[in-house]
Every structure is written in structure tokens, then in C-alpha cells.
């Protein structure tokens, strides 16, 4: 018997975990659908559509980011919630599956299933509402780019075809990082997993940003940049941020895996 990973056992574990986690997942998903529909409905009332402008659909960007963060973080934070309660923890620890299988099943549900379903859900709701607007409204604007070429912007574009969303690729690591942080929080804390993880995250980010600003101020005060233009390019900065994000994600996943293996009941 392979004690590290067995595909059949992993399949059984996924099936079993759905029994526990399925309800939390479906409730969260139902709330998500409700919230998204509500926001679209509130922002796209008859009155708003009468005065349709290029800004009317801008509510979608914060909506996408905030609900995305909440959905991914809540799902990740709920997965190991049972480990904080001894009776549930005992049953789950003693399920004959390896630590790696148990961890991968968490990744499967909280990331591989959760993120695509969120994107699909947002896409379908956006498709429904925007299609109905497109049936009655058209609004385009244009500008001339630096090469003298005229660029036409469709202001009633579907969310995932907008120019802004296409630039999100530099932040593709973010859902993974959110997942890793909240998954660790759900294993690390005994109770109030979500709140404690969120507070820890805020404290960490605040501390990190304050110290970076403080250090950079100290280092660059009364100095002049004489290096090459490498760091003046946004793409290079975002690339380094992505690398750091990927590194942190992997590090948090590794710590979560170790904590899961060592969790006592």
C-alpha cells in the first residue's frame, strides 16, 4: 500500500469531504449568486439606464475584486474549520488517507473548484445583465493612440472583455495567495478562523508596508537615482511582485501542510 499518495484513495476522500464541506460550499455559492445579482440589479435600474454613460458599468470592478476576495477567503477559511473542534477533528484525522491527500483535497475544493466557479458565476451573471443592456443600448467612445491609430472603446462591453480586466494578468497569483493565507488560518486557529486570519493579515500588511516605506525613506532620502531604467518600468515591478506572491503562496501552502500533519486532537 502506498502510504503517500494513492489516486483511488484520493478519489474516495474527495467524495467523502463533499459530505462535510459540500453544504458550506453550496451555501457560500448561493450567497455569492444572490449578492452579485443584487448589485447588478441595483446598479442597472431603469433610471440608471436612462442616463447610461461610460461609467455606469464601472461598479463591476470593485464588485469583482471584493466578492472574489470574500468568496475565495471564506471558502478557504471554512475547509479545515472542523479541526478546531475535537470530536470532528478526531474523525477526520483518523480517516485512512495520507496527509498529502488530505491537503490536496483542500486545494481541490478551495481553489480548483472555488476559483473557476466564482469566475463562471460572475461571467454568467454579467452576461445575462449586459446582454439585456446591449439589446437596447450602444455606447462607444474613441481616442487616437500614440501611433495615430483610432481606438474605439465599447462602453457596454462584457466584464471579461474590458481592457482593464485584460490587464489583471499581473495579479493572477492573488487568488492563490488569498487561498494559501486563509487555508493556513483555518488550520492554525482553533476558533474564529476567518476573523483571526483577517486581523492577522491586516496587521501583517500594515506592518510590512509601514516598514517598507520607513526603510525606503531612510535609504533614498536626499539621494538621486543613478541606476538604469529597469525599476522605472511598471511591468518589471509587477513581475517581481508576482514572484514574491508565488513564493509566499508556496510557503503558506507548505506551512499549512506541515500544520495539518501535526494537528492534534
Amino acid at each position, binding site marked *: 500500500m502506498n*502510504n503517500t499518495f494513492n489516486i483511488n484513495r484520493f478519489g474516495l476522500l474527495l467524495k467523502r469531504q463533499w*459530505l462535510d464541506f459540500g453544504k458550506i460550499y453550496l451555501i457560500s455559492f448561493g450567497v455569492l449568486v444572490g449578492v452579485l445579482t443584487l448589485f447588478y440589479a441595483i446598479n442597472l435600474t431603469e433610471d440608471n439606464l436612462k442616463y447610461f454613460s461610460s461609467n455606469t458599468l464601472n461598479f463591476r470592478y470593485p464588485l469583482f475584486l471584493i466578492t472574489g476576495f470574500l468568496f475565495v477567503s471564506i471558502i478557504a477559511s471554512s475547509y479545515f474549520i472542523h479541526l478546531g473542534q475535537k*470530536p470532528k477533528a478526531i474523525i477526520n484525522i*483518523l*480517516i485512512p488517507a495520507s496527509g498529502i491527500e488530505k491537503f490536496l483535497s483542500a486545494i481541490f475544493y478551495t481553489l480548483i473548484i472555488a476559483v473557476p466557479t466564482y469566475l463562471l458565476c460572475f461571467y454568467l451573471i454579467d452576461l445575462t445583465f449586459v446582454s439585456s443592456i446591449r439589446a437596447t443600448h450602444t455606447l462607444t467612445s474613441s481616442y487616437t493612440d500614440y501611433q495615430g491609430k483610432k481606438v474605439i472603446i465599447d462602453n457596454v462591453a462584457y466584464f471579461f472583455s474590458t481592457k482593464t480586466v485584460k490587464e489583471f494578468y499581473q495579479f493572477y497569483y492573488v487568488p492563490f495567495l488569498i487561498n494559501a493565507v486563509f487555508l493556513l488560518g483555518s488550520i492554525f486557529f482553533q476558533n474564529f478562523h476567518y476573523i483571526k486570519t483577517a486581523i492577522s493579515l491586516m496587521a501583517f500588511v500594515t506592518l510590512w508596508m509601514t516598514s517598507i516605506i520607513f526603510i525606503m525613506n531612510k535609504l533614498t532620502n536626499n539621494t538621486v537615482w543613478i541606476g538604469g531604467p529597469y525599476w522605472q518600468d511598471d511591468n518589471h515591478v509587477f513581475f517581481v511582485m508576482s514572484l514574491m506572491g508565488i513564493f509566499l503562496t508556496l510557503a503558506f501552502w507548505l506551512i499549512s501542510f506541515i500544520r495539518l*500533519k501535526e494537528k492534534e486532537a
Partner: protein
Amino acid sequence: MRGMMGMKTLTHIRLPLNFFQNNLEIIKQHHTLVYYLTNTVDMININNLNFGYSKHKPLFKNMSMRLSNGHIYGLLGKNGAGKSTLLKNLAGLVYAQSGTLDVMGFNPAKRQPALLEQICFIPEEFYLPSVKIDAYLKANAPFYKKFDHDYFTDLIKEFDIPVEQKLINMSYGQKKKVIIAFGLATQAKLVIMDEPTNGLDIPSKAQFRKIMASAMTDERCIIISTHQVRDLDNLIDTVIMLDENDVALKASVEEITAKLTFKKVKEIDDSIIYAEASLSGYNAVMPNYHQEESKLDMELLFNAILAEKIKFKPLFS
């Protein structure tokens, strides 16, 4: 040297040379498991176990003990003596500070599936999901290769469990019966039960004793921790008593009744090691000098050991 001999055998049956090296751990575990399941040997070996929930308050200090298959052990101890904790150590639910724990050739702390499917752990407090028995069975039974569905159905019938009801809506006693039935149907070799009779009504306790007696096989090792010693009367064959961070007594019922006699006496004399007043005199424990036959009174023995540990030590060392 052993490894080299193994490799020779392998080349003889034309397996790749690196087969053993790559699979040595799996082969060793499989071999050990087969060995443990087919021989009456120490199924559990505890060596100098040190454990405590905080470093300043040790629960076990250099505890050593061996438990074999083919026995039903009764684990007794005061509140806080560490009965549940010892069981958790055996199942790998908590980690020892030092010392070694060997369960069927595995270190339980590694929580390997090969060992976990050989352990049936019935905790005192447990959780069952909001599903019917069928759904619970479908989700959990496939993890246990030897799961006996017919036996499970028989046990559920015997315990008179309403199968159409959701597990979460059942009473504590009914849930406990479901979890006991499931655990026994896994055919696990090591059965660990923490206060299994808590919450069971009087007829269910009798059923439990009957079922446990029939579930005992030569391959199995059953450890039952309880405060309600009368529930285990005639069921356990070996008594393990924990006190003051260690094993205060580990002896078979036969050995205890061969060395001690449990009697009702009118007056106390010097030969009595321990006595408790009763309506008609005293319930006493005394050395069995004349090979008298008496029934083990576990409650009396328990109190006697706790009160007169030093007097009993030479008898069971």
C-alpha cells in the same frame, strides 16, 4: 546485511536491482503488518513514553507497556490520569514528547493510511454528519478494504437503530451505537474505545458486552477505557490501571484472582490489604494464600490499588 540478502533473493526472481531500495519502506511495513496480524505478539509496544499537554505538567513519565492481540484490555484510572490521552497517543491523535510508540510496526504519529485502516477508534465525544446511515456508509466504508457490510447491517439491527433517520437527529446513545457498529465492521485489528458505554441504556450495555465478546478474535486487540467498571464485568481479560504518570497495574484477571481474593468479611484483620465498609460488614481484598476462587471486584480493586499502591506493587511486579 539484511538488505543485501534481500537483494540477492530479488535478483534471483529477476526484479530490477533498485526495486528493493525504492520500495524498502513499503515492503518493511507490509511485512511487519502481515507478521503482526498472523502471530500472537506485542501489537503495541510503548517504550519510555513521556507526554504532557504542557511541559511543566507531565501526564506520563517514562511509561512502558506491551499489549498483545487476542486480548480485551480494560483501561482504568482516576479523572485526569490520562486514559483518553493514552488512547489518543496510540491512535496518533497527539504526539509524545519523547519515547517510542510502536503500533503493529508503525509509528502512529505518522498517521499512515495502512495503519489508520487497522484502527477503530471510538471517542467519548464524536461528531456524525447530517446524513442517513446509507450515505455515511457510502462515504466512509470504502476506505476500509475489509469492511463487512453484512455484519454492519446485523449490528444495526441488533442495536435497533432507525436507519431512515438522519444521524444528526439520533440520540447520543443511538449515535454511539452507529459509530460502534461502523468501527467493528471495519474489521480493524486494533479497537480503541473511550468510555463506550456512556450514554447507552441498560439493555444496550448488555448488547454491547455481547457484541464485544463476539467481536473478539485472536487477531484483534481491544482496549476499552471506562469509569463504569461494572459495564466491563466478564468482558475484559486484562486490567490496566493508570496512576501518578505511569501504569499502576497491568495484570490479567486470572493473575489478579490467583494472587488476590475478594471477600465479604465481618471483621478486619492483618491479612486484609484493603477493605471498604458495606451493609453486612466489609468488602475486602487480601492475598490469595489458599488458592481460593473469587470473583474480581474491579471497583474494589481500583480503590485498593489507589489507596495501597505500595502494598500491591510486590505482588504484581
